[in-house]
């Protein structure tokens, strides 16, 4: 097979025992039946239904919140002047960061031919697609007149009006759309052989038909594999670029202004790093949940958790470096507004958001120096959750703290959120978790094809040894 030619150059040491991610007892057949069985048998049904019920209700609330919003206007949120962008854009940036981070990690690992990613990539790509879906709600609903959202896009019209192409917001609109396309394609194309496996293994007619349609006529011919690998890797390259573009684009919405605290060349890089951090955090949470719900311990093993922990630690250290650099640049740079803004970050009304980053993200990563913690699904769940919370704090700090007091003291006003803003955000959480639950119910929760590849690769390595 074409894939077999792609032998990995090496495996990370330390996370595994003798390079073994999954038990050597696993064969193609056992991997296939373990993963397909979950989709067919639907284990942990009660827990799933409880979780789905809650998520469904939260999504329903989102609908109510949006109707209320469309009826009254964005004034139902706490946004004001000067804090015109608040929880709406914080949530958008956060969701989009999660999406970009997850996609970037998954695609990079594919390009680096790390086949152990098979245990994590489905979770990561699902996160990317569904976070982008949750984020995609905001760019439209945060508008004062959401029914004209399409004016942000270049479309031929008899007024010869175009978007204003200097605006980072226009490019952000392009970014979201192209990101969604690439992320969905990456997720779906990577899943094709797995869907075909499910089609082949399905016992009920309806399952055969549905998975058959979804598999797009995959037959496993050599030509299929060759094309598939090509397409998957091209999409991976696009995905990485896209993730970088989206985060840079989002940060230029702030860095492109003259506002103190925003007008900063470090901001794009910081956005990419924090996106990776919260994206990995979300993958960690999702993987822990999948391990908790389903009998996949032999496919998503402690070695996988370990390597995920190492990734989080590395990205977390990078983020720490960014914050430190930001501190020194500002402190030594001498701009009095920047310095005053930094002091407000540390001690102002919204200082909690800065300390949330420190306490929830920058400090807990150091727990991951310990092997035992890295290999504990529960601890990884907790740390992943903290990473997401910390990065949420970062987005809040980046947005609200500079806005509420920029240059003129007379412009200062504080932002207080509102019931509707908070519950809209919770509604998007509900939407995300509802979609996640549907995906893990019906779709192979780990990559069958890449797990098989990993098993074979492990066998070859042991045989060579």
């Amino acid at each position, binding site marked *: 097979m074409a894939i077999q030619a792609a032998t990995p150059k090496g495996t990370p040491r330390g996370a595994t025992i003798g390079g073994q991610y999954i038990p050597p007892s696993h064969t193609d057949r056992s991997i296939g039946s373990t993963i397909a069985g979950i989709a067919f048998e639907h284990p942990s049904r009660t827990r799933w239904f409880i979780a789905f019920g809650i998520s469904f209700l939260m999504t329903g609330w989102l609908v109510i919140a949006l109707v209320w919003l469309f009826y*009254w*206007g*964005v*004034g*139902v949120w*706490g*946004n*004001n*002047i*000067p*804090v*015109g*962008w608040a929880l709406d854009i914080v949530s958008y940036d956060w969701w989009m960061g999660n999406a970009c981070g997850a996609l970037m990690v998954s695609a990079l690992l594919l390009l680096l031919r790390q086949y152990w990613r098979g245990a994590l990539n489905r979770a990561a790509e699902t996160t990317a697609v569904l976070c982008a879906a949750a984020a995609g709600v905001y760019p439209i609903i*945060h*508008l*004062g*007149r*959401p029914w*004209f*959202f399409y*004016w*942000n896009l270049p479309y031929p019209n008899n007024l010869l*009006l*175009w*978007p*204003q192409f*200097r*605006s*980072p*917001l*226009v490019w952000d*609109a392009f970014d979201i759309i192209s990101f969604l396309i690439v992320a969905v394609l990456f997720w779906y194309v990577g899943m094709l052989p797995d869907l075909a496996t499910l089609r082949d293994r399905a016992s009920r007619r309806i399952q055969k038909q549905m998975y058959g349609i979804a598999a797009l006529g995959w037959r496993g011919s050599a030509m299929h594999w060759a094309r598939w690998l090509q397409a998957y890797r091209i999409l991976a390259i696009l995905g990485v670029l896209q993730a970088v573009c989206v985060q840079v684009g989002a940060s230029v*919405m702030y860095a*492109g*202004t*003259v*506002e103190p605290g925003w007008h900063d060349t470090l901001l794009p890089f910081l956005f990419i790093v924090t996106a990776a951090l919260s994206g990995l955090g979300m993958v960690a949470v999702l993987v822990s949940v999948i391990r908790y719900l389903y009998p996949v311990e032999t496919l998503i093993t402690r070695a996988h958790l370990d390597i995920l922990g190492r990734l989080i630690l590395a990205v977390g250290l990078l983020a720490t470096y960014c914050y430190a650099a930001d501190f020194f640049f500002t402190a030594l740079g001498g701009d*009095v507004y920047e310095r*005053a803004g930094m002091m407000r970050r540390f001690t102002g009304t919204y200082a909690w958001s800065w300390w949330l980053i420190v306490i929830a993200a920058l400090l807990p990563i150091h727990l991951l120096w310990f092997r035992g913690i890295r290999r504990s699904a529960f601890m990884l769940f907790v740390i992943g959750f903290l990473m997401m919370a910390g990065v949420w704090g970062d987005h809040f700090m980046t947005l609200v703290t500079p*806005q509420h*007091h*920029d*240059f*003129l*003291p*007379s*412009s*200062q*006003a*504080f*932002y*207080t959120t509102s019931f509707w803003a908070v519950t809209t955000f919770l509604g998007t959480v509900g939407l995300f978790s509802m979609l996640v639950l549907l995906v893990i119910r019906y779709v192979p929760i780990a990559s069958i094809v890449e797990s098989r590849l990993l098993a074979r690769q492990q066998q070859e390595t042991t045989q060579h040894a």
Partner: protein
Amino acid sequence: MSSLRGDSGALRRLLAAVGGRPSWRALEQVADSPEFGGYIQQSHPSLGPMLAGPSRRRVLQVMAASLALGGLAGCDKRQPSSGTSQIVPYVNQPTGLTPSEPLDYASATLLDGIANGMLVTTINGRPIKIEGNPQHPFSRGGTDVFSQASVLGLYDPDRSQAVQHLSNPSDWDTLQAAMLNRFAAVRAQHGAGLRLLTGPVSSPTLLDQIAQLKQALPQMHWHVLAPVGRDNIYAGAEQAFGKKLETLWHFDKAEVIVSLDGDFLDSGPHQIAASRTWVAARRSRAVQGKLLALHAVAPVPTLTYAKADYHAPVAQRDLLPLAHALLADITAEQESQAGTPPATPAAAWGANAAAALKAAHGTSLVVTGTHQSPELHAVVHQINAALGNIGKTVTYIDPVLGQAEPFADLVTAMGAGDVTTLIMLDTNPVYAAPGDAQFGTLLQKVSLKLHAGSHIDETGARSDWHLPLSHPLESWADARSLDGTATIIQPTIERLYDSRTATEILSILFEPQPRSAFTIMRDYWQKQMQTADFETVWRQAVQAGFVDRSAFPPQTPTAKPAQPAPSASDSATPPEILIRPDPTVWDGSLGNNAWLQELPKPMLKTVWENVVTVSPAFAARQNLKNGDMVTIELGSDAVSGPIWVLPGQNDETVMLQLGYGRNSVGAVGDGLGYNAYALRRLAGLWQADAAKFQRGHGSRTIATTQQLDTQEGHDYIRLQEIGAQPVGDTAAYTQPTLYDRNDSDGRAWGMVIDLDACTGCNACVVACQAENNVPVVGRDQVLAGRDMHWLRVDRYYTGPDESADARFMPVPCMHCETAPCELGCPVEATLHDKEGLNLMVYNRCVGTRACSAYCPYKVRHFNFLHYSEAPAVVQEQRNPSVTVRARGVMEKCTYCVQRIVAGRIAADKEDRSIRDGEVVTACASACPTQAIFFGDLADKGSAVTKARQDSRNYALLGELNTRPRTTYLAALTPTKEKA
């Protein structure tokens, strides 16, 4: 209204009692019931006879007819007698009126019965904007917040709309019929038992009418209730000169001005003229390289105090001793220099002021304020006399207000039961009388109470008859401005409701054949002018808006020798409680004006309520912070209000403001703040020293438009010392930029704001709101940080709390040449035009709010909710040339682009360029001190170009390379003396 609601409630109960499933038959049962009969009798008496008869068809006929005839209400009902056909446009218009072209009429607005000359802009017959009348000899084109907001008062939906008798609708004919016998009896008794109570009156016509009434009914009494009034001024002049006089200041002849709690820059009928002449004098001194220094002391910082070059806070009780000390110092034979250096800041200030006064004999001016005691006024007159200022920097004229019997006498008479008929004209004594008058209780003893007012207010609700009073913008009337100039008020719209003017009401009550306001006034002036060519003179007067050369002649009375200084006051227990009018809703009569409610108080920056102000040190001592509730008790009266800490206030002084705590003024003003009138006493209106100050329970959040008071070490407001190096610079325009554009069409609009001339009066803010249809958002939205004023006046403090300098900075859109907002907008809804305007295209805006996030000046405002929704009658005020913004749309100052367009069209039609001064923004034209220059920067000869070449010119946040088109001229300060 409540009785009607109660009755319909009874009807509903009746309907419910008819049965589980009411049918049409059930309705008939109800219709036959006595309750229904009673309801009809009470609320629709005219329907009674019809229902009683057999003909239901007749009822239907009437209803059909009323529907059909309803359309006729729109028809022209101009009659020669109403005088509406006699109004004369200000400019020479071609015959007829061009639709949608603005047309100005000279008229006036009133404050405390005193006029300021105005032009009323009407479009399609609707008055929509007030501008100053530049021809008016007293106000000379300036405006104040009250005149600017008066146009909204016309369209107040809560104005009373019909005569009410015992809370039921009635009409003028019924009133006249009912009063016929009643007033015949009064006349037979020569007016015994009849009392007339009015607000302050300067109207020559009305005063003449009252004088004639008193002649006809010698036992009638006329009283005036003036919540603010000028009684202290008159009483002070009486003490000093032996007769009641009005004081006029001539700043142009002064070299130094000393203010002992003076208020010449503060709200009041004098504000427009006084601040204009003061700034003009200050400017002419500045041209000579000198400073027209203002020395001020005050217990509570006022605008006058804030603009002073030397100031110190002084307790109210120390003002009179200080004045006596000044007088003694000035009249002392030799210099008393040898003494010890002054111990307190006030004493240091006093020594400095005395030295300055002595150096400017005959060219100095000492002033005090409307609310100060007659004794202080008298001493100030004596100081001016001692300095030889009388006849030079200060002159006197007869009082412009009619002198009535004191209000206290009315209270006594009512208490004694001597009042049988009380006519209350344009006054609201139940609310605005001092608390110890107990006017509401006394009113019950009067058998016939007539109230004429614009609202069914506290007094109207307790009167037998309430008569709707016409708004000045729909009336023929006259009034005097403070120099005595008789100013003509002509109606600019047909009466919105069936209301009457004060003169008409007196005519209805006392004349066998009631005359119209126009006839009454015209008859008076015909009699007065005694000229053969009356028609021409009259027409000229109406067209110009005032009677030429009608100002009172100046007098130079001789001051009596000063009374000996009172012995040092046996220091009453601090704190001293002062009561002052509110700077925006004034005495409370303007409480239903939403523009004024949302207008930040100039010193406090609070909106929508009154507060209790104390000094920072006082607050620290008592452990109070903004919003903490306190209670002030005087006898059995107590009010509770929230604390507001005011830097620069005297340490032992607590200030309360009038104008709030109303419950029947209307939907806007009800239920806001506390009522300080309860603490007022007939014997002392402005001070409640015996009151007890106590901490109350809890605290409340106060809506404010500016949270931070300091410049945080920056020089947003630059100060230019006289004779020092220029502080202005052009650095903001010399940095390189990537967005350099050269696509100008030859014009470059720009604005320069002179911070030395800005007194912080807020007239520009209200003018902008009126011109540009800026919505009012209400207290909750201001608290949420969503106020909409396109032009705000920032107020910053410098220096220590106890002697803080307050400085004002109006901030409109800067119209940056390299505007950051334009970069942010994804749909190009904000962009530059070729004349340098930063435009806002409302119907392209999708509401991303990016432009506001990108704006370093934060001058943009967003319609977070449906702010432009308003009652239909309020919408009548809106300027048809300015888009009313929908929700979800960003808006900001446009440099009044509609006026620029109008100017451009006018110029294009005549194939010429726009002349300098042809386009004036609403703020610039409203400014009483002409602090705002607007025009074409590309025109080398324009006033704005000259202002920009001033060495004091600088850009706000110019270092950001935004290249703002709005720049500032630094404020002047005295040269720092070497200690």
